[in-house]
């Protein structure tokens, strides 16, 4: 195995070119575990840590641009991932981490809320947003949260840089739409609708485990009527599960329990979760509407106040 540490994105792209078994090393929190278990044997490993731009968080044109190498711990503490409202805390793992101060507010908070619930502090210190996306594990927390936030990904390749909505980035279990020779350089997160709240509810067996089911949501209400809703379910299929029809059902409603369960049923019908030691496929589908109702119901209550 060859290990390289380029200092610019073009150098990194050049290093990836022409080698199907080349991989980028971001935080390594999944890749190293897979290498230790002999699951993945890259021929070339392109370490990204020396590319300064990948570590930056900048605000441009209403988008928060988060470099691919920004860690979960930094995301969890990133105050610009906030807006105006109070927090919906996750009910599952993660919980109150000491690295997070202040309250989670605003639409973008869905990302921050997800980041703080990933695994445990030592993993969050090293794991990165870019690595989490490129691993494309639908059981992970950030993919669903970023779809809910309406994020875009910035991808560099031999032909330059392109951006694309994150929705289409996740293709299948552990498969992203990255073409050979491409790398993810940043994630762009829009501000989201005025007054919206974002939250990530994670339900897992134990603290720090992968979610059995997770619900990422961004909703806004005006005068008791939902003016915006975007709800995404994790661990529910080969990619984060998002249905326009479910959002449409919620938008314009009072987000009462009946409509939440109805939206949840739609998503549950579309879900195709795995059957594994964390829970059966049927259990995950059964949980989905009730967890969605719990997650969005909590958001609704914040507008009541």
């Amino acid at each position, binding site marked *: 195995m060859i290990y390289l540490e380029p200092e610019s994105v073009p150098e990194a792209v050049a290093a990836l070119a022409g080698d199907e078994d080349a991989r980028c090393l971001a935080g390594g929190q999944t890749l*190293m575990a897979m290498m230790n278990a002999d699951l993945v044997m890259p021929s070339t490993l392109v370490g990204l840590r020396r590319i300064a731009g990948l570590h930056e968080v900048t605000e441009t044109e209403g988008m928060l641009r988060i470099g691919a190498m920004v860690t979960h711990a930094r995301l969890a503490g990133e105050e610009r991932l906030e807006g105006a409202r109070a927090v919906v805390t996750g009910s599952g793992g993660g919980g109150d981490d000491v690295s997070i101060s202040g309250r989670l507010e605003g639409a973008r908070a869905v990302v921050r809320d997800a980041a703080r619930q990933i695994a445990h502090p*030592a993993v969050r210190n090293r794991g990165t947003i870019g690595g989490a996306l490129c691993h494309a594990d639908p059981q992970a927390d950030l993919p669903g949260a970023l779809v809910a936030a309406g994020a875009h990904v910035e991808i560099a390749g031999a032909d330059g840089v392109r951006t694309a909505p994150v929705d289409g980035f996740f293709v299948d279990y552990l498969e992203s739409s990255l073409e050979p020779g491409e790398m993810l350089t940043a994630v762009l997160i829009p501000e989201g609708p005025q007054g919206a709240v974002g939250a990530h509810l994670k339900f897992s067996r134990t603290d720090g485990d992968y979610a059995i089911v997770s619900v990422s949501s961004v909703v806004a209400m005006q005068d008791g009527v939902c003016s915006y809703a975007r709800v995404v379910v994790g661990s529910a299929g080969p990619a984060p599960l998002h249905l326009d029809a479910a959002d449409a059902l919620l938008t314009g409603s009072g987000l009462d329990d009946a409509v939440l369960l109805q939206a949840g049923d739609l998503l549950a019908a579309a879900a195709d979760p795995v059957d594994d030691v964390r829970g059966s496929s049927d259990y995950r589908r059964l949980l989905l509407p009730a967890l969605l109702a719990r997650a969005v119901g909590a958001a609704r209550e914040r507008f009541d106040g």
Partner: protein
Amino acid sequence: MAEKVPVALFVNGENRQVLVDPRQNLLQTLRADLGLTGAKCGCGHGVCGACTVLIDGEAVLACLALTVAQAGREIGTVEGLADDEASAALVQAFVDCGALQCGFCTPGMIVAARALLQRNPRPTVEEIRHGLGGNVCRCTGYVKIVDAVRTASGAVQP
């Protein structure tokens, strides 16, 4: 055997030159090449926390850190835990509170607790439970570990 490559590491305040298989993780390097056996391997995939070390002051799992990618970073292990008041207090509190049994998780636990106290000098019980949630102990039931960290932080009298 794979071709080995040289790496310059900075461990516990010293420059150390090692020759390693590029696939090797930092835990293997610390234990096999540098003779620093304080960090332990309990799982090999970043779940047990027994290999927790400090990299640039942050708690990190050595088994998930590629050795060749650590050049130029400041690596701290339990053996080199700074001789500061907080570290000394932690070590003393673990001893006094009986916060260890078989001791296999203890080095990782101490390092993780040190990093926790760095971020949050006066953690609550809840903050400790989540802050050290990635360090598995199979012996103690955790109660005395939480007590030790609180004691070390000065939150409770020993």
